[in-house]
């Protein structure tokens, strides 16, 4: 709540300060969209989603309406991503960076204000009062020289901000996608865990009744009771995992109150017929990834900075302006002239500044190189993860589940023939459910890997190291 309010407040105050700048500047060149168009374009092209920058009550109403609409039915993954893009307040806060950055850009394009200086001295002299008055209006000439370069730098920084905001948005989309699948799978697992629990409950109750009429001893009864205790624990754990992942999704979607009661579909989407073949996945990443583009721009900006620093190393300030002065009596009349002030590079030759700029540039070069290396590696890893998780999920669907089903069918036949008892049948059902759970997890992991791959192609992904799930190891 308070976070939301403070975000609102900061947005509003920023808007006000932006307005002030515009009024003062008069000839201000603030853009219509505040740099948001490029973000919206990215959302449209890369995500097939829309984003809105809530800058007024009307915007907020529109967003609220869209949110309500999206929440009216079980959330698909696309709906969840759309919801997050519209409703996540962290993203709205990131949009404010655009305004801040643009302000800097506009500022850089402004002439500095002229400076007016005045000196007044007086003294009672023999001829009455004597004055010394100097009036000078000076203007920083150097800023005129540097203005195009500074503007260029600020423009790049503004573009970079746009990219960073876009990346932030993509990251949110990816995170939402992954959390969505996790939450959905967790809900599915809870339903299965409850089934196991019910079966275990039935066997415990049956064992109790068997002991009651003398067909089971205490050991046999305790064993069945033990299964029930384990199953109850399993369903509690599943419940816990489900709540955690759902809350994480709720946060990403920016929902609270009644809205947090959103519903998810019954089951994960089916595995696609075939995985996507992406032979030149690295090249795609190099051309598409926003973080690679951003670091490139940053490096270029730093190169320009370096050049600027080199040319201006000796000059700190160069000021020029008309001056008039009066000396002596007040009616002695003003002498007119101009004033140039100039700082002598006597102690500071600017070498430190140049060295720093050079170091920054070199650092940026290396960061850019590392970013490219990482990007290639990340996209390879993401693609491999995607392919292998597809194979695993398909193996579960086409091999493991049919075998488990066949085992269950055969066990049913054996039960029919009184070759095994009801407890064997229930034990098999429990084993069966564990593999159903693993199948759900494998499918979930595939969809998460797919989200990771999509992210890796357009920005830095948050790859998870492959982990063997609990249920999978239990099923073995």
């Amino acid at each position, binding site marked *: 709540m308070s976070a939301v309010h403070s975000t609102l407040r900061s947005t509003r105050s920023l808007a006000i300060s932006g307005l002030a700048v515009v009024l003062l500047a008069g000839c201000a060149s603030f853009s219509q969209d505040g740099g948001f168009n490029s973000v919206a374009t990215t959302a449209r092209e890369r995500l097939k989603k829309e984003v809105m920058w809530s800058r007024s009550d009307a915007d907020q109403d529109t967003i609220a309406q869209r949110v309500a609409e999206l929440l009216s039915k079980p959330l698909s993954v696309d709906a969840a991503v759309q919801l997050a893009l519209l409703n996540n307040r962290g993203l709205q806060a990131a949009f404010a960076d655009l305004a801040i950055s643009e302000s800097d850009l506009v500022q850089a394009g402004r002439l500095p204000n002229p400076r007016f200086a005045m000196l007044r001295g007086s003294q009672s002299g023999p001829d009455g009062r004597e004055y010394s008055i100097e009036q000078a209006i000076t203007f920083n000439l150097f800023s005129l020289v540097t203005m195009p370069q500074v503007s260029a730098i600020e423009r790049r920084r503004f573009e970079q901000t746009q990219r960073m905001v876009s990346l932030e948005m993509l990251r949110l989309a990816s995170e939402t996608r992954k959390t969505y699948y996790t939450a959905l799978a967790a809900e599915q697992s809870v339903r299965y865990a409850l*089934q*196991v629990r*019910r*079966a275990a*409950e*039935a066997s415990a*109750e*049956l064992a109790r*009744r*068997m002991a*009651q*009429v*003398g*067909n*089971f001893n205490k050991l*046999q009864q305790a064993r069945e009771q033990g299964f029930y205790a384990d199953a109850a624990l399993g369903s509690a754990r599943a419940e816990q995992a489900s709540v955690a992942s759902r809350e994480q999704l709720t946060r990403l979607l920016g929902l609270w109150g009644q809205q947090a009661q959103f519903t998810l579909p019954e089951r994960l989407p089916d595995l696609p017929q075939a995985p996507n073949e992406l032979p030149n996945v690295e090249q795609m990443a190099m051309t598409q990834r926003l973080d690679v583009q951003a670091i490139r721009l940053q490096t270029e900006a730093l190169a320009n900075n370096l050049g600027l620093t080199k040319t201006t190393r000796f000059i700190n300030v160069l000021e020029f302006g008309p001056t008039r002065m009066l000396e002596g009596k007040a009616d002695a009349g003003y002498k007119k002239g101009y004033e140039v002030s100039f700082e002598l590079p006597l102690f500071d030759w600017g070498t430190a500044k140049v060295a720093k700029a050079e170091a920054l540039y070199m650092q940026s070069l290396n960061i850019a190189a590392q970013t490219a290396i990482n990007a290639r590696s990340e996209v390879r890893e993401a693609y491999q993860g995607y392919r292998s998780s597809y194979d695993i999920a398909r193996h579960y669907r086409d091999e493991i589940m049919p075998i488990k089903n066949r085992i*269950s069918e*055969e066990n*049913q*036949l*054996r*039960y*029919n*023939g*009184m*070759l*095994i*008892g*009801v*407890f*064997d*049948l*229930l034990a098999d*059902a429990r084993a069966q*459910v564990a593999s159903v759970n693993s199948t759900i997890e494998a499918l979930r992991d595939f969809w998460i890997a797919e989200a990771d791959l999509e992210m890796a192609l357009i920005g830095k992904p948050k790859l998870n190291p492959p982990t063997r799930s609990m249920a999978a190891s239990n099923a073995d």
Partner: protein
Amino acid sequence: MQSRRHFLRGAGTLTAAVAAATVSKVAMAALPEPVSQASPNTMPPLLPRTGRPYNPVVTLNGWTLPWRMNNGVKEFHLVAEPVEREMAPGFKAHLWGYNGQSPGPTIEVVEGDRVRVFVTNRLPEHTSVHWHGQRLPNGMDGVSGLTQKSIQPGKTYVYEFVARRPGTFMYHPHADEMTQMAMGMMGFWVTHPKTRHPLIEEVDRDFCFLLNAYDIDPGSYTPKIMTMLDFNLWSWNSRIFPGIDTLNVRQNDKVRIRVGNLTMTNHPIHLHGHEFTVTGTDGGPTPTGSRWPEVTADIGVGQMRQIEFLADEEGDWAIHCHKSHHTMNAMGHEVPTMIGVDHRGIAKQITQLVPDYMVMGERGMADMGEMEMPIPDNTARMMTGQGPFGGVEMGGMFSVLKVRKNQKPGDYKDPGWFKHPQGTVAFEYNGALAKPARFQSKGGQTMPRAQPDSPPVEVKVRKPVGHADH
């Protein structure tokens, strides 16, 4: 379903086997042609056309091996080979046997016959044949390693000896015996007396079968040869009820039944409606003074018994092993007893996870016979077989002796179910039931208890209320 006997005529049913590729044709030319049997049905007695005459036996769900006379020697040809044995209609086992079947064909000779048996090995491992109970030269006894070299795959060995004493015998391998017996390698041998023997009576019908046991997992085909005692199929001549043929006789026939036990436990074979005497063992005919009337003869492991009786009571009389698990087919020995357990509420809960679940065993195991639910492939139902009055609820070592007035001599055909004369079948009593008088005395205590009794377990027996809950 009761399987029907199909009586086919004599040697026509015997199909010539294809000579195995592993045995040289030149070598085979000197041998009697090996004869193979494809059908598991009971074959009519093989009347001797050559050699000394005798009164032949009928092998239950089996047959007798034909022979040839060669310069006064009776020559047989046994082929040890893998076979597929139908143990009951719809249930087949992959066994090892002789000449197409397991057990192998019965060998019938007459006391004093010179017998030459060619044994060809078409098994994947070496074998030998031991002639259980015979008097013979030591080198013909068939114990591989001890009295002879084992017969390697593809090889043919010759055993030759004189059938010195009349009686009931068996043959089986004495090489990797554990495997080969568990796989069904065994057969019957009957030596008929040359002339009238004071201790061997002439009979009208002479049946024989071997007791054997297998452990075949439901849905599989091959016996588990490592099983020592916990077998799940108890068979006569590798057939299980209702796959076993009935023993059909004429009223007042003198009947002999020869039984040999090649399982790993004893079998008390019990006949209903008649008393019999044990007239012989694998040691020979028993002295008349040692014979006593019985209705059950316990046949020990590795033993043979000849029982004889006068079939003077008309009807369908059960003959079975009295170990009650031996009259069952494959069942789960670990299945918990469900009798008296209240399933209310639970069955529904279980069906949520196991949709096809049905409560069974709550009232007893007879449910099994009543319900015809799908069971694993190639598995005989545990208790089945329909009689004229309903389910017989039997399996394994169980058959029926059918005594009929109008069964013709020499006719072994199944006469169908017995038609009981009026008033000779148990009937339902419809009168009032008096309250039973219970014995009231507590009786004396032999020894005082150190510990007080624990609270009694509640006994719940479902009273018969029909089976509406199925």
